[in-house]
């Protein structure tokens, strides 16, 4: 692994590696076929800064109102020894009354370093897993660790509940509302896959301690505000499918050397910052370096990946840039120019394009016939 790590360090250059978190790990699952993203993430590259330096920053950002609201809701649910959460777990999920033990793992006697927090988390969860009864129920902000792309990533779920139906459950607290039993599908999906990352990490930790994966439920508890109030409500969500997807993605990240083997040795995403931290890398050189790692752009990237605007520019003129459905409707032909030539009948289709070409020509004929012009 050392050669690979050295290679990844070289790709990243002088910057400190960006730490993964549950969100970045779950984002990996959204475009598994993209080598550019896999390599840059494995190397811990600050994609936002790289994208900005080549003139295509992604317009991502979080409103402070959303952050404040999220924090306030979590604090409220956990106040008074997790009083509201306990009620939900008791009423909705039959947590026994004596199970109220609470451990705050935000810090260890004031020490907030990852290493110390993780050691403490590990010790407490190990004790709970070994002794079952009477060894803790609510673990607030435990610090887990997961290996991703050969690197240890620290992850912090909102809470882990033990002895809920005899197993560990990941509890995720989100501040989007569930209104009349319905919540925003996209937000739920994001919460589910993030929780799946935590389940994976928790299973890893317990596996190191010799405890099987069945000790961690593949159902996670999602806590959200109900209707328009601040009252919390809880739901159990099955994350088995997401676990499978994630596991495959992580395995792929672990085989990062296969991807690295296809990239010229000289490639680096180093921004060459000066003493003041201002990037001095030649822009064109950086563009070439990025271009040396193949991407698989789809418009969905615009939601999840910091490189999206660069990749979109690069993909201009491809049918993929018009969306997956458009590309499929055009028979998977990559290039818009080719599509239009086939439409005009000015080039003969390749054998594998024959069927698609016939449909495209028919469509072009009809459009021309109706609109009185040719494409």
């Amino acid at each position, binding site marked *: 692994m050392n050669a690979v790590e050295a290679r990844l360090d070289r790709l990243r250059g002088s910057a400190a590696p960006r730490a993964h978190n549950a969100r970045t790990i779950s984002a990996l699952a959204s475009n598994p076929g993209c080598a550019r993203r896999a390599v840059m993430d494995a190397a811990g590259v600050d994609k936002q800064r790289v994208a900005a330096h080549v003139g295509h920053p992604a317009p991502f950002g979080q*409103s402070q109102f959303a952050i404040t609201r999220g924090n306030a809701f979590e604090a409220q649910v956990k106040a008074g020894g997790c009083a509201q959460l306990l009620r939900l777990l008791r009423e909705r999920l039959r947590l026994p009354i004596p199970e109220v033990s609470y451990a705050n793992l935000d810090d260890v006697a004031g020490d907030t370093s990852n290493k110390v927090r993780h050691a403490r988390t590990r010790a407490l969860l190990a004790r709970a897993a070994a002794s079952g009864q009477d060894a803790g129920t609510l673990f607030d902000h435990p610090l887990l660790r997961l290996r991703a792309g050969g690197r240890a990533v620290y992850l912090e779920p909102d809470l882990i509940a033990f002895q809920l139906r005899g197993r560990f459950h990941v509890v995720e607290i989100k501040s989007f509302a569930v209104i009349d039993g319905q919540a925003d599908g996209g937000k739920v999906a994001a919460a589910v896959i993030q929780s799946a990352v935590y389940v994976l990490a928790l299973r890893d930790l317990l596996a190191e301690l010799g405890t099987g994966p069945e000790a961690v439920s593949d159902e996670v508890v999602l806590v959200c505000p109900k209707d328009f109030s601040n009252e919390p409500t809880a739901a159990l969500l099955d994350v088995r499918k997401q676990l499978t997807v994630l596991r495959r993605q992580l395995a792929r990240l672990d085989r990062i050397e296969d991807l690295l083997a296809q990239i010229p040795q000289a490639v680096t995403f180093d921004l060459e910052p000066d003493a003041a931290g201002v990037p001095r890398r030649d822009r064109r050189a950086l563009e070439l370096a990025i271009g040396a790692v193949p991407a698989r752009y789809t418009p969905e990237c615009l939601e999840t990946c910091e490189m999206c605007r660069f990749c979109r520019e690069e993909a201009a003129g491809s049918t993929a840039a018009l969306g997956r459905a458009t590309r499929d409707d055009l028979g998977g032909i990559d290039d818009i120019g080719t599509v239009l030539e086939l439409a005009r009948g000015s080039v003969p289709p390749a054998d594998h394009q024959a069927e698609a070409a016939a449909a495209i020509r*028919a469509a072009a004929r009809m459009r021309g016939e109706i609109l009185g012009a040719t494409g």
Partner: protein
Amino acid sequence: MSVLTALARAQAWQAGRAQPVATVRHVHVAPRPFVFVPLALAGEACAPLAAMAGDDPADPRLLVVAQPRNRTQRFAFAAELGRELLRYIGGFPAGGAGEEGAGAAADRGTAGQGAGEGGEGERAVPPDAPQVWLPNRAGIGFTRLLGRSTRFRRAEGEHAVDPVVPVLGRWLTFLAERSEHPGSCLMLAATEALALHWATGQSPAEDLNLASLIGWIDPPAWTDGREAARAAEDPLAWPPAGPATDPGFDNEVLARLIAACDRAEAGGGEAARAKAALGEALAGQLEPAWRLTWRAIGLLRALPEGGHVAGRWEADRRAFGWHAAHLRDGGPPQPRRDSAVAAARRLDSMERAAASLAVQRALDDPLVMAEHRLAGEALAGRVTAAEPDRVITGPSGRRVLRPLVTVRTHDPVSVEPGTVLAPPGRPNQHARVESVAPLGARGAGMAGASGASGASGASGAGAGAAGETEVVLELSGGMGQRLTPAPGSVPGVGDWVCYATLRDEYQPPAGFPEPEQTPWTHGGPPRPYEPTDEDAREAWS
């Protein structure tokens, strides 16, 4: 999506300009629509922050909530919006009011569709109805939530609100629900209405941005669609059209201004200045979307209206009349959730409306029909031979007029002999497929298409003539009472014709039990929805 639309996107990309995917307008555009552009505070379920609303493009009403987490201010916003919207809706007489049974009819109203359905209660259809536009579908989602959070409120009691608030909630709920009904135009999202008529050179996901969509459709003179669409993605130049605000605006501008309003109120004085500054900043975020929404309306209005649009609008007017009557008769607000029977009815009616809309659009619009031609469900081509006066002896022994026409088409024909087709625009005529004969390159000369070759269009595009098909059709109906066809009812040689398997037929609703007979498997008969004290008091925080 289809090859046609996909090709239109490819063409748009190359042309640097959106390409039409419709030749007529498939939505009703009211002469005097109402535009509503809301903004919500990030992180909250439904916290109105500001809105521009009104029916005069030159004179929007700006509504601002200085402290969006403050319940009183939220309800003040709702009341102000309610007065604005009700003033507008009040301009449309709901017609035929007050007869008995209006409440019951209105219950079916959400499920009820279309002209003439059920035939019961021939109440006068209101002559016109309100039409509310939002920039995008997310705006309609916000409208629905705003409706949900206001319709159960009460004007009296412990948590009393302005009486206009619950009425607003019920109208917003009605409009937002109706907007899910295929073909309905009481509440429209500008992005969706535009995307129904134009294909851009970008992805559908990027089309959700109204500024960039319009950039493709109608770029400024000095640039093309690609550039205009890219420029429209800069949140500083083109703030998002809501309801979500740009996080950068929240963090760098909004937070400071809201804090200033809070301080001003606590400390007294300065309040007006702080509020004005907040209003100005929010107006700056809203105004582009306000103008864009009106531009979208203008772009659509310029298209000729499709033949079935008026019929669908009549269904909308009817639904509007039902809801107005329901409100007037003191009916209860829409429940939190539909009962089992109501949900099934609603789904069934939406499915039927979707099917009917698809057919109507194809019948109204050759570009939409082309999708069906590509799929082999319709064919279009030139008449190469016609026998308009053919008379045969029918099964009952009577002599009947059954003209034959021969159509030569490039379309991929998948109909088989015996299939009955119909020509768009002649709902009473049927065309039975007699024979289908693919023509090779040799066959092209056989039918002696002297009239066809001189005409424009088709023959030029299909230069090779390979892949042509000759279809013989037997016509019946829609030709008058005599044994010779009425003039113009049978196409002549050289005419361009289209025949389709599609038919806009009235489909009766599926059979559902009356609500009081709901089986226990579906929860048994629903108790009529009685808004509770708890509903009225519900926190909105």
